[in-house]
């Protein structure tokens, strides 16, 4: 898919997810906006998937390890055709099936239920490892938050991915530099991430998490690498696309009020219109 088409899809996903979080009066817009470009590239360009066959044993897998960014995943899945976009209107509602964190039982296209940080990447290791038994050639992707890296289980999973040289596994880290209580550098310093992942035996790649071409290139390089698992460090902006949410930890888990919603929507819609107007 062209970069312009990817940008348009990501812009639509931002509108869907901010609208859903506003309707729900709760949710996690900041991290959803920072990772939605990478999810768009994965689901519209990189992954071998067919929304008509969500259980195909040969499909590529994706695990949203930072499960609180379900609004981003659900939006991309809806746009990709797994379920109607209108389902997003019942995010977090008792009337629907779109629970606050990814639910593989009730939401079509979700490959793993997540929400408890540090666990999704282990599940992704398991999916990649399963291919060694089943002989299937799918790839597995998992997106983590940089705050999530505080969890010790992430590093257990890293050791395991390296032990079994899972070149069919690619982790992506949404490095937006913020977590609930503030800067990741203050809450629990985890840098230097590149040196840490390298020391754990992973092939480290870097990308601009809001540049479709940069994300695509990194994913392609990860697929080329055959000596072990790869991790892509995505430089991102928390709240990307909504001016007052950008780089503000306060928007980690808070819904915009009506006035803020109107402003966010006008910014996001103007951005989409601008992309569509481009020649």
């Amino acid at each position, binding site marked *: 898919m062209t970069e312009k088409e990817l940008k348009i899809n990501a812009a639509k996903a931002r509108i869907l997810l901010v609208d859903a979080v506003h309707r729900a009066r709760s949710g996690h817009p900041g991290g959803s906006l920072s990772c939605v470009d990478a999810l768009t590239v994965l689901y519209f360009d990189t992954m071998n998937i067919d929304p008509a066959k969500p259980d195909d044993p040969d499909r590529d897998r994706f695990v949203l390890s930072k499960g609180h960014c379900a609004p981003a995943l659900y939006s991309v899945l809806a746009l990709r055709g797994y379920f109607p976009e209108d389902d997003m209107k019942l995010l977090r509602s008792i009337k629907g099936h779109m629970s606050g964190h990814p*639910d593989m039982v009730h939401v079509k296209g979700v490959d793993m239920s997540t929400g408890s940080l540090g666990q999704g990447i282990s599940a992704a290791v398991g999916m990649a490892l399963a291919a060694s038994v089943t002989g299937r050639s799918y790839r597995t992707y998992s997106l983590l938050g940089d705050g999530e890296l505080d969890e010790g289980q992430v590093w257990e999973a890293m050791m395991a991915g390296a032990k079994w040289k899972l070149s069919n596994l690619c982790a992506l880290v949404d490095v937006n530099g913020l977590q609930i209580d503030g800067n990741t550098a203050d809450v629990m310093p985890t840098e230097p991430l590149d040196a840490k992942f390298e020391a754990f035996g992973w092939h480290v790649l870097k990308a601009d998490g809001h540049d479709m071409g940069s994300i695509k290139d990194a994913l392609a390089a990860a697929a080329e690498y055959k000596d072990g698992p790869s991790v892509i460090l995505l430089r991102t902006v928390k709240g990307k696309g909504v001016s007052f949410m950008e780089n503000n930890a306060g928007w980690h888990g808070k819904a915009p009020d009506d006035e803020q919603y109107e402003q966010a929507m006008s910014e996001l819609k103007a951005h989409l219109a601008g992309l569509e107007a481009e020649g």
Partner: protein
Amino acid sequence: MTAQEVQKKATRAAYGEALVELAEKYPELVVLEADLSGATMTKGFAKEYPDRFFDCGIAEANMTVIAAGMSTCGLKPFTNTFAVFAAGRSYEQVRNSIAYPGLNVVVVGSHGGISVGEDGATHQMLEDLTLMRVLPGMTVVNPCDANEMKLAVEALIKHKGPAYLRLGRSAVPDITGSIPGYSFELGKGVQLRDGNDITIAATGMTVQMAVEASDILKESGVSARVIDIHTIKPLDEEIILKAAGETKAVLTVEEHSVIGGLGGAVAELLSEKHPVPVFRHGIEDTFGRSGSAADVLEYYGITARAIAEKARGILEGLKQG
């Protein structure tokens, strides 16, 4: 049959054999380990099926969720570590990544109960049945002997959904194979002795003790029914309700906390559906301590004689009103 003729084997040993014996028949079976393959007895499978054996190192939380991921790809993982880590350290992983999505994983807790012995309280898991039983959709199985364990392993391979299987460290008499009419089905209790004075419902290695207690009681004219509850959840309500209706009291026995395990399950059932006197025999609200398995079991009153004494006392108490 005299006591000398009954073979003794630890359920963990039978489990390890079952994995190897069933591997060809069930190619989806994979075994995950956390650096305890000599103790959990998965080493035989590791040797015979190295491509289906995954040692995750001393990282139980990761192992648990790796298994969850593997199960979504059509495999049937059994995770292995000590019960205290399987149900304790990895509790939230079991809850959120296996039970909540209803995944097809068997979490195996070896060295369950007080009979671990010498290692002491940190390794004597007395709360696993409670912790696993409270999770929605979990099947919780605690076989009493080698024969029952092998049947349980195959049943759990075929079972679809999350399950917990408890193994014991110590060698125990292998009795169920020679009991006429014995058959194994998940969720079905087995009546091993008939009786109409009191019902003793036991699980794990205390089943054999309950049978022996029944024999002791018989000598003094007390007729004790013995029910083997190998599946704590789903509990066989029918066999327990029937026993409650046909005997004067129900005594539960387990080498586990009296809170929330078999005793809890039976008390919950009977208090709502058929209130009769229920007594729970097990480890009172306390941690274990070091000692040989036999000494520790004696210390905490997990013996046939102590069970018989308790049953006799219950019936005396009821007689006196």
